[in-house]
């Protein structure tokens, strides 16, 4: 069945795409071989569709249709536009690494300051030696496509014992309309590290573009890491991001994802707790309006005993938008004393808004504490009336209650400044509604 479906126009379009892009894709001969293999995997599978269980609610064939051709390398004018977007979205005090249309922009980045604390290469540089950067265990078609097409990214090596003096902010800027950018980054974190990594996705005037990003994070024992992703792409863009996280022992890992842009988006996170005594806090907010489709899919794999995972997810859905949350918790046979909880809530602001919540627990150990909860509903009329009776107009009363609703996820961000930054993005989304 899949084979027959794969032989559609989509597969051929990608074939042309790959052939025309191949000359621009960096890497040694070994890398080229990995790319070809990945591309063949993609060509065989085609874009994911609703008959593939993991993509049931996000049918990319129906929602996206075709993969656009590779964005051209940014010229001087594009970099100038990108610089404005970087300025507007930079987090105060953070060290910036900027990717423009899928290409690392050294002039917009803080490489020198960063290099004093962290090992840094671009993906382009790293691929001269290491073809392994394009390999993942996944058989997912969009991840295979990413491996085939990735033009650039950042490769960070944070040595054991490093206490980062400033957060690292990776900013993806789109300046090219009707084109696709493929990026892949790797963050290797040693033992006993304290670090905050932020990823920001924004547009600088670009329309109807596509982003396919992958990020691979490994966290050494005894580390304390915050990973925050803020996707605020253009309203007609597509953003598909895959995260792979492997966590060592006695680690505190706090990941937060916020979606406030893109016509079609999916964040798929695959987080493995591979060392005992670790605590994972995985949280997210989708703010969707008009006809936007936003999918957050998290797979948390408890591979070892004695770990704690907590997931708090909130979706606010207006107009005819569609939010998807799929949360799977896997507890392996050895992973006794696992404590895994997941809570997802959707707030529907219109009769035509849609929320799909799919929590899944796959438990193979017998001494665990796991649970999940899911709700969907409208704003509480009695709370709205109370606020209006105190003088707040309808939209302002709604905004206050929406902020409170998403606040339950946002307050999981420990750093005050970062939390304020995220609240600011949510407030701007609410202002756009009014």
């Amino acid at each position, binding site marked *: 069945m899949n084979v027959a479906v794969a032989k559609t126009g989509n597969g051929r379009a990608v074939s042309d795409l790959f052939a025309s892009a191949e000359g621009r894709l960096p890497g040694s001969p070994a890398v080229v071989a990995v790319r070809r293999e990945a591309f063949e995997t993609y060509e065989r599978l085609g874009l994911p569709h609703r008959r593939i269980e993991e993509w049931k609610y996000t049918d990319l064939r129906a929602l996206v249709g075709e993969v656009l051709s590779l964005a051209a390398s940014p010229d001087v004018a594009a970099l100038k536009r990108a610089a404005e977007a970087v300025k507007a979205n930079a987090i105060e005090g953070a060290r910036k690494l900027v990717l423009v249309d899928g290409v690392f922009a050294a002039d917009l980045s803080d490489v020198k300051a960063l290099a004093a604390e962290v090992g840094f290469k671009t993906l382009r540089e790293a691929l001269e030696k290491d073809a392994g950067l394009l390999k993942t265990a996944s058989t997912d078609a969009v991840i295979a496509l990413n491996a085939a097409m990735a033009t650039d990214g950042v490769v960070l090596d944070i040595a054991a014992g490093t206490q980062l003096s400033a957060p690292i902010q990776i900013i993806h800027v789109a300046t090219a309309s009707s084109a696709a950018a493929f990026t892949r980054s790797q963050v290797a974190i040693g033992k006993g590290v304290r670090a905050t990594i932020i990823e920001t996705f924004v547009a600088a005037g670009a329309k109807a573009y596509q982003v396919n990003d992958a990020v691979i994070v490994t966290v050494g024992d005894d580390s304390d890491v915050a990973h925050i992703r803020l996707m605020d792409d253009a309203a007609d863009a597509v953003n598909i991001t895959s995260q792979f996280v492997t966590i060592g022992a006695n680690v505190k890992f706090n990941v937060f994802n916020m979606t406030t842009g893109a016509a079609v988006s999916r964040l798929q996170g695959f987080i493995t707790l591979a060392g005992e005594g670790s605590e994972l806090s995985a949280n997210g907010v989708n703010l969707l309006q008009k006809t936007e489709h936003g999918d957050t899919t998290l797979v948390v794999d408890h591979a070892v005993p004695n770990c704690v995972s907590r997931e708090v997810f909130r979706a606010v859905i207006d107009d005819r938008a569609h939010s998807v949350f799929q949360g799977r918790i896997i507890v392996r046979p050895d992973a006794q004393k696992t404590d895994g909880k997941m809570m997802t809530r959707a707030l529907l602001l219109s009769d035509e808004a849609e929320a799909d919540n799919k929590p899944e627990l796959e438990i193979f150990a017998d001494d665990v504490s796991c649970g999940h909860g899911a709700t969907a509903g409208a704003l*509480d*009329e*009695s*709370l709205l*009336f*109370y*606020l*209006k*009776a*105190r*003088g*707040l*107009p*309808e939209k*302002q*009363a709604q905004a*206050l*209650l929406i*902020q*409170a*609703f998403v*606040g*339950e996820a946002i307050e999981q961000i420990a750093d005050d400044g970062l939390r304020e930054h995220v609240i600011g993005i949510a407030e701007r989304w609410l202002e756009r509604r009014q």
Partner: protein
Amino acid sequence: MALLEVKDLKVRVEEREILHGLTMTVNEGEIHAIMGPNGSGKSTLSHVIAGKPGYEVTDGQILFKGEDLLEMAPEERAAKGVFLAFQYPVEIPGVTTMNFLRTALNAQRKARGESELMVPDFLKKVREVSKSLNIPQDMLKRGVNVGFSGGEKKRNEVLQMALFEPSLCILDEMDSGLDIDALRIAADGVNALHSPKRAMVVITHYQRLLNYIVPDIVHVMSKGRVVKSGGKELALELEASGYAQFEDAA
């Protein structure tokens, strides 16, 4: 001067008429008490004045300072000076009391064309009033009414009254669920707000509250109408003889 004029008001809830032609006038500076048995329409009247959805006014009118109140959205009524102290104040997790108070006050000021209150002035005022009402400062940093006791919720309503400075305060069953000490603190707060320009309408089941907030005029409601009005002695009379005598009158 007449502040609130309710004229022959008829109100339905889901096809059932609750108020059957209610008339009353509240002048500036007056304290009115509305008493009556359960189901007589006391709370319905307060909800209709505040603009709660779900009530259909089929006849009559409500004028506030001579303007048609029923034409205004609830937030416009608030900005014009109508304040309803809720019988059951809601809990709003995630919205701190301080943020709520500032947002509401500034929304009202904006609607009246006034400038926003500066933060230091606002904080000073909140501190003064909350101190007089025995509201600890850390309560203001918590979600609105979240984890508050019944008495604390009612005091929070009085705090808002003091901050927003409405010209008409309607207190809906302020005494329900309060012990004597809590009642006294809340009532003292209300009395402190009484002024020649501000009127109060105290809705209550029991005479007890009226020992603390002494009314000028007492109305007895039964079956959706005011069946008797009189001075404060009427409340004592009711306490002695009960509402039964009025059930027939209605």
